[in-house]
C-alpha cells in the first residue's frame, strides 16, 4: 500500500520536471515524480562497440525510425519505439515527432546550446505587430536565467546585443582559428554579427546528473519510472486536479495517485496530449481549455542542415598553419531588428551555427574510385559548414489534436499533428542560404554546395506552443507563471507554454521558466491560494 504523502506530483523528469524537483525538493516540498520511461544506468546500459560488429554496419535497422533521423545504430535503443507510440499527420505534411522516454528525457541527448530569449521575442507583437506578446518580459525572467546558467555551466561570450542578452557565463576567451577569423571578418564587412557558441559544458549536462541527484538527496523526492500517465482526474466540486491515473509501462497495470498540485513537464506535445485526453463534465474539450486554444499554435524552429558546405582552400592536402582550422561560432538573428516595416520579404529572422575543420561528405564530389579517394584525402579536415535555424511563426491552424481511431500500446488515444512551413519560413531559408554563400565567398572559401531545403517540422526537436501562456484567459491556457487560467493547482512547465520562440534553442528558457514557476507556486502556497 502506498503511503508516501506528497505535496506535488511532477509528470516528466527532463528539463522542466527535473528543474521543478530541484527547486521544490530543496525548499522542503514533498515531490512525487512520474516518468513514463525507465531509468538509465550508464555503466550497465552502455559499452563500446565497433561499427562492424553492429548487425547493420551502422546503417541501422531499415524502417525502424521513420521520423527520427537523429537515431543511429549505436543509440537506437535510446529513442522511443514508434510502433508502440504511434501518431498521425496529414499525408502530404509530414511531422517528425522525435521523442526519448527515459529518466532525464531529452536532456540526455540535447545539443546544449543555451541562448536567452530577448524582448524581440517576449514583446514581438510590439515590435512588428504579428502574433501575441508573452505576458512577461526579459526583466521578469532575467534573474532566473542568472541562476540557471551557472547551474548548467554555460560557456560563451557576452556581446551586449539586445537580441542576444548577456548571461552569467563561463567566459570563452579562446582564440579563434584563422578560418573562423576569416569568416568573422567577412561577416563584419556585411554587417553580420558573430560570436562564440554558448553551450552547457561538462561530460553530461542533464537532469539526471545536475538536478535530480540534488533533489533526491533532500529526502523530498520520490521517483517512479515506467509510469505512463493516461489522464488527470478533476474534483467535480472545485474543478481542481485531484488525481493522476497512470499505467505501468511493463505490466500495463493501472494505478491512481491523489494530487494536491500537478506540475506537468512531459514535453510539449505529450503534455498537451494528456490535457486533451483529460476530458470531464467541467472540461469537455480537455482540461484547462475554456479558451479553446489548447493544442493550437504549434510551432518550432526550422532547420536547414548544412545550408552551406565549403572548403578552406589553404587547408587542402593538410597544408596550412596548424591554427588554420577548427572551432565554431554563431550568428544571432540580425534581420528585421528595426521597428516598423520589415526590411526583408519575411517577418522575424534566423541564426546560424557554423564550424570549421570537418571533412565534407564524399557525396558532394562528382567523382568515384581512385579520383574520389584522392580528393577525400586532399580535403580531409578542410571543411567549413553552416546550419540555419529560423523562427517559425505560431499559427492557429497548426495544432495537435486527438486521433479518435488510434491508440498507443497502453490504450491511450494517440495524437494527430498538423504543422507546415509557410512562405515566411521559405523566404527566410532562401535568404539565409544566399547570405551564407556570400559570407563564405567573402572569406575566400570554396563553396561546394548550398541549399535552402528545411527539414520537416518537428525534426529540430524544438517543438513549442499548444498550451500557450498569455495575459488574456480567452486567448491563452496559462498565465505568466505557467499556471492554468482555469485550474489554479495545475502548472504546465515545458515548451508547450511558449507563445513564440525566436531562433534560440529553448531548453535554457524552459529551465528558467520552471524555476520561476516553482518559486511562484511556493509563494502561492504560503499565501494559502493553492
Amino acid at each position, binding site marked *: 500500500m502506498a503511503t508516501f504523502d506528497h505535496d506535488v506530483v511532477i509528470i516528466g523528469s527532463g528539463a522542466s520536471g527535473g528543474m521543478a524537483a530541484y527547486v521544490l525538493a530543496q525548499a522542503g516540498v514533498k515531490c512525487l515524480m512520474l516518468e513514463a*520511461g*525507465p531509468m*538509465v544506468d550508464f555503466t*550497465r*546500459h*552502455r*559499452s*563500446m*562497440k*565497433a*561499427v*562492424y*560488429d*553492429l548487425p*547493420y*554496419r*551502422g*546503417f541501422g*535497422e*531499415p*524502417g525502424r525510425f521513420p521520423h527520427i533521423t537523429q537515431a543511429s545504430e*549505436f*543509440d*537506437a*535503443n*535510446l529513442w522511443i519505439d514508434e510502433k508502440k507510440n504511434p501518431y498521425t499527420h496529414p499525408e502530404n505534411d509530414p511531422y517528425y515527432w522525435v521523442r526519448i522516454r*527515459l529518466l532525464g528525457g531529452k536532456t540526455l541527448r540535447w545539443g546544449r546550446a543555451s541562448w536567452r530569449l530577448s524582448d524581440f521575442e517576449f514583446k514581438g507583437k510590439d515590435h512588428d505587430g504579428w502574433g501575441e506578446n508573452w505576458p512577461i518580459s526579459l526583466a521578469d525572467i532575467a534573474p532566473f536565467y542568472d541562476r540557471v546558467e551557472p547551474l548548467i555551466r554555460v560557456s560563451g561570450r557576452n556581446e551586449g546585443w539586445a537580441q542576444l542578452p548577456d548571461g552569467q557565463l563561463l567566459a570563452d576567451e579562446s582564440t579563434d582559428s584563422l578560418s573562423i577569423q576569416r569568416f568573422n571578418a567577412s561577416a563584419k564587412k556585411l554587417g553580420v554579427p558573430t560570436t562564440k557558441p554558448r553551450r552547457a559544458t561538462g561530460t553530461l549536462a542533464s537532469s539526471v546528473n545536475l538536478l535530480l541527484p540534488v533533489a533526491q538527496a533532500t529526502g523530498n523526492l520520490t521517483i517512479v519510472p515506467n509510469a505512463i500517465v493516461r489522464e488527470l482526474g478533476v474534483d467535480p466540486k472545485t474543478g481542481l486536479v485531484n488525481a493522476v491515473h497512470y499505467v505501468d509501462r*511493463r505490466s500495463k497495470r493501472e494505478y491512481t495517485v491523489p494530487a494536491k498540485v500537478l506540475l506537468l513537464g512531459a514535453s510539449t506535445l505529450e503534455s498537451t496530449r494528456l490535457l486533451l485526453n483529460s476530458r470531464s463534465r467541467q472540461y469537455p474539450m480537455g482540461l484547462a481549455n475554456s479558451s479553446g486554444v489548447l493544442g493550437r499554435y504549434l510551432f518550432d524552429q526550422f532547420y536547414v542542415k548544412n545550408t552551406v558546405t565549403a572548403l578552406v582552400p589553404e587547408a587542402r592536402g593538410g597544408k596550412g598553419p596548424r591554427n588554420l582550422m577548427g572551432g565554431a561560432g554563431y550568428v544571432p538573428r540580425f534581420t528585421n531588428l528595426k521597428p516598423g516595416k520589415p526590411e526583408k520579404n519575411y517577418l522575424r529572422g534566423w541564426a546560424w551555427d557554423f564550424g570549421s575543420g570537418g571533412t565534407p561528405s*564524399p*557525396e*558532394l*564530389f*562528382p*567523382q*568515384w*574510385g*581512385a579520383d*574520389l*579517394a584522392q580528393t577525400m584525402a586532399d580535403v580531409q579536415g578542410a571543411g567549413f559548414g553552416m546550419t540555419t535555424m529560423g523562427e517559425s511563426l505560431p499559427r492557429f491552424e497548426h495544432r495537435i489534436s486527438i486521433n479518435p481511431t488510434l491508440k498507443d500500446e497502453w490504450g491511450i488515444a494517440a495524437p494527430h499533428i498538423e504543422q507546415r512551413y509557410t512562405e515566411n519560413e521559405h523566404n527566410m531559408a532562401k535568404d539565409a542560404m544566399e547570405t551564407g554563400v556570400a559570407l563564405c565567398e567573402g572569406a575566400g572559401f570554396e563553396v*561546394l*554546395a548550398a*541549399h535552402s*531545403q528545411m527539414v520537416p517540422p518537428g525534426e529540430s526537436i524544438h517543438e513549442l506552443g499548444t498550451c500557450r501562456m498569455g495575459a488574456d484567459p480567452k486567448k491563452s491556457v496559462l498565465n505568466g507563471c505557467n499556471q492554468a487560467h482555469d485550474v489554479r493547482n495545475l502548472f504546465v512547465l515545458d515548451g508547450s507554454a511558449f507563445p513564440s520562440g525566436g531562433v534560440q534553442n529553448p531548453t535554457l528558457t524552459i529551465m528558467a521558466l520552471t524555476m520561476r514557476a516553482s518559486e511562484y507556486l511556493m509563494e502561492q502556497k504560503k499565501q494559502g491560494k493553492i
Partner: protein
Amino acid sequence: MRESGPERYRVWYMNRRRLLQTIAATPALLPAQQINPSPDESAVLKADSPDAAGQPVRRYFTPAQFATLAALGDRIAPSISGRPGAKEAEAAAFLDFLLANSPRSRQVLYQRGLDTLDRAARTKHQKGFAELAEVEADALLAPLKTKWTYAMPADPQAAFLRAAKADIIRATTNSRAVAEANVAGRRRATGLNPYWHVIE
C-alpha cells in the same frame, strides 16, 4: 531408520554443501592444481560477431544483379595501395542483406538501377556490366559527374547511382576489413563508439 526418496537426497546435498564450504574455506591446504585458477565471476569473455565465423547467405538480388552490384562496388570503392575496397569489405553481400530488409521503394530503386546498368552494358558492349573493362564501365557511370544538389536527381538511374555510391562507400568504410587494415597500418582506429543496449 533407513533414508529413502527425496529425504535421502536432501541429506546428501546438505553433506555435499558442507563439504564444498569446507573446501572453499581452506584453499591453502589443497594442492595448487585443484584450485580454480579463475574464480572471478565478473570475468569478461571475448566474443565475435556472426560474420567472423561464417559466410553470409545471399538472399535478395538475382545472380546477375549481384554481379553488377559487386562490379559497381569495384569501380566506386576499389582497393587502393593495399587498403581494402568494396570487394574486400564484402560490401555487395552486405547490401544484399540490407536491401532484403529495406522499404519497397529502396528495393525498386536498386533492382531497376542494377538491371538498367547491366542492360546498358549489353546494348553498348554486348556483355554484362560485370565483364566490362574499367573505361567501359566508367562511361556508364557518367551521371555521377553531375554537380551535387540537395534534391535527388529526377532521372531514376542518376538517383540510383547516387544512392549506391553513398551506400557502397559506407558499407566499405564501416567494414571489419577496413577497421583491421587501419589497426594494422597504425592508422587511427575508426568506428568505435558508445553503444546503448536495450533499456528495460
